């Protein structure tokens, strides 16, 4: 039952018809899709997203950027895993052949309600993770559910490179470099 609901939820996620900032598809390649959605079901806001799903369609790996009306721009992107399971903590491995990079994902609370429906990559890991998602071939996510049991999810990265690149260009996204936040020297 849970599985079906989440599938429906995720399908509805990618079927928004946004108007104010030209909502609609941006790019799709193999297992990855990018688009602008209006009234995102989880975040309850207009967002620019690039995502892929597990083979059972129950879980989603998504790069999300929320629209800011004040500045008329999309915010810096975050990387999230949305899943119907009782996740406490995610440990994500992005792999190319035998090379592994590990990232931690912490629980998050969406805007629409106060409950947790997934996990989010650490703030400083975003740029590394996005580069890894573009260049590697598979994502394995190990998670701990509420009962302390260890579970696994697997996401394909087939088509991720082109889709994520188009996603960044179309929504004019960037991640601020820390050097830009260095204080100035006074004369």
């Amino acid at each position, binding site marked *: 039952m*849970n599985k079906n*609901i989440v599938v*429906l*939820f995720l399908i*509805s996620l990618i079927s928004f018809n946004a108007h104010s900032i030209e909502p609609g598809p941006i790019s799709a390649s193999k297992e990855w899709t990018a688009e602008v959605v209006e009234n995102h*079901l989880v975040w309850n806001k207009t967002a620019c997203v690039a995502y892929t799903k597990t083979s059972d369609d129950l879980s989603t790996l998504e790069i999300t950027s929320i629209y*800011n009306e004040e*500045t008329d*721009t999309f*915010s*810096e992107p*975050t990387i999230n895993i949305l899943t*119907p399971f*009782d996740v*406490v*903590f995610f*440990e994500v491995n992005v792999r190319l052949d035998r090379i592994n990079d590990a990232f*931690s994902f*912490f*629980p*998050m*609370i969406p805007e*629409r*309600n*106060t*409950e*947790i*429906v997934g996990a*989010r990559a*650490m*703030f*400083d890991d975003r740029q590394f993770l996005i580069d890894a998602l573009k260049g590697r071939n598979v994502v394995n996510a190990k998670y*701990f*559910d*509420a009962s*302390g049991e*260890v579970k696994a999810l697997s996401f394909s990265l087939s088509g991720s490179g082109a889709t994520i690149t188009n996603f960044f260009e179309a929504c004019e996204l*960037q991640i*601020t470099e820390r050097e*830009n*936040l*260095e*204080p*100035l*020297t*006074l*004369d």
Partner: protein
Amino acid sequence: VSIKLITLIVLVITSVRANAFDAEQAKLINEYNSKYESVLKEQGLWPNEQEEFNSKISEAQLSYDTSISELNAVKESVLFLSQDVETQVGHLEFLNQLTLVSEKNKDKIKEAVVRARIFTSANQVNVNSLSAKSNELQIQIDDFDEQIEEREELIRRQEDTPRYRNLIGIKSRLENEMSTVNAGISNAQSEKSILDSRISSLKTSIETSRQREDDFKIEAIRIRTQMLPPLQAEELRESSRLTQLQQDLSSEISKRDLLNEELRELNSRIRNIENRLAQDPDDDELKRRLVRVTQNRNEKRRERNSLNDTISRADRDIDRLKSTIERLKRDIDSKLELALQNDAQAGEESIKQIQFSSQLNIANSDLTTVTSRLSSLEAQQINLTSQQAQNQTDINNYRRTNIFPIEREIGIINGQKTRVVRVQNQILNWAQGLERENINISLIPDRISAHEQIVASVQSEFEEAQTKLPALELNSKRLLLALNASKSAYNQRVTAINTLYTELKDLEEKMKTELSGGNNE
């Protein structure tokens, strides 16, 4: 309806899932999520804010830099003007001292005049008194010139006497004659040189030709005595052999004619026997006779054929011998011709020698003539040299007696005149020096006045520039404060975002410990 239903179901599920965390963990997660969103939001605003900050800072920096440039330009100007004031004041002081310097120069000139005893006191010395003195000396100089002119007139008269004119006339004539004789000697020497060269050349030609004549003669003798005799002897031998061969050939031809006659006789006999055998084929005697005669005829034929071969060989030998004799005759003729040619060339060389000898005789004769002429001219030259020496002695004697005393007087007067001119030049120099210093002294007040105006002007510029400095320095300080204020605002904003970021990082560390640590256990 279906969307509402789905939403409701999601809410139920998530509500159940939230129970998985305890209250403290839920609080931590809430705080972390909230901080994450804040940093995202603030950091997202930063690029635009940074652009605005940078624009303001650039503007403030530009204003500050401009004010500093302006301040530095005025400072440089003040420095330059202060140096200029110093320089101009120094120059004014120099001008003020110039009159004193000129007066000192004038005193030095006056002292020099007194030392030279032109005047007894310095008070007497001035441009006019010096000019008057110079004029006095000029009268003396003119007097000297007059005396010199008188004596020069005396010299001219002495040089215009008949005796002196005659001596000069002789000198001129001797010089002309000497010039002509020298030209003649030069020509004769040139001709003699050419003739010497020609005689030498002709002698060489005669010797060469004589040598060639001897060579041709020797060659003709060698041909006749060494080359011809062997050829002639060989020709004689070959001719004898030819005669012998021709005699042998005649003998062989006679033999062959006899054999031919015998063969005709034997053939006739054979035909007879054959005719008779035709009538009586069984006559054995006839048959035997036929065989015998036929054998005899065949024997004669072989002899004749052999003789024919011998005659043919003899004919060929005779032809070869004739050819050899012809060749030998040609060789002999050729050698004879060569000997004759050598004889002819020897003759030609002999004729040449006669021609060269004739030319040599003419050249020798010419040389004798030229040598004789040259000797005559050289004798004339010696004679003229002697006459010129005598003439020059006469002239010198005349001048020593009649002109040199006057010239000595002119020399003495010239010496006196030179001394006076030297004093006059010195006086004129002093007068000019005094005049120059007087002019300098008269010009100095105007120069001082003009320069005082320059000093005042530069001083005024300097003071004006100096008054600008405090306001400009104040403005620069104010603009620097404004610039630092803009930067401080920038830094405050950066600090605020960085504080949020640091708090987020702390929370991430805490989350990692609380969540992953707990689960890993």
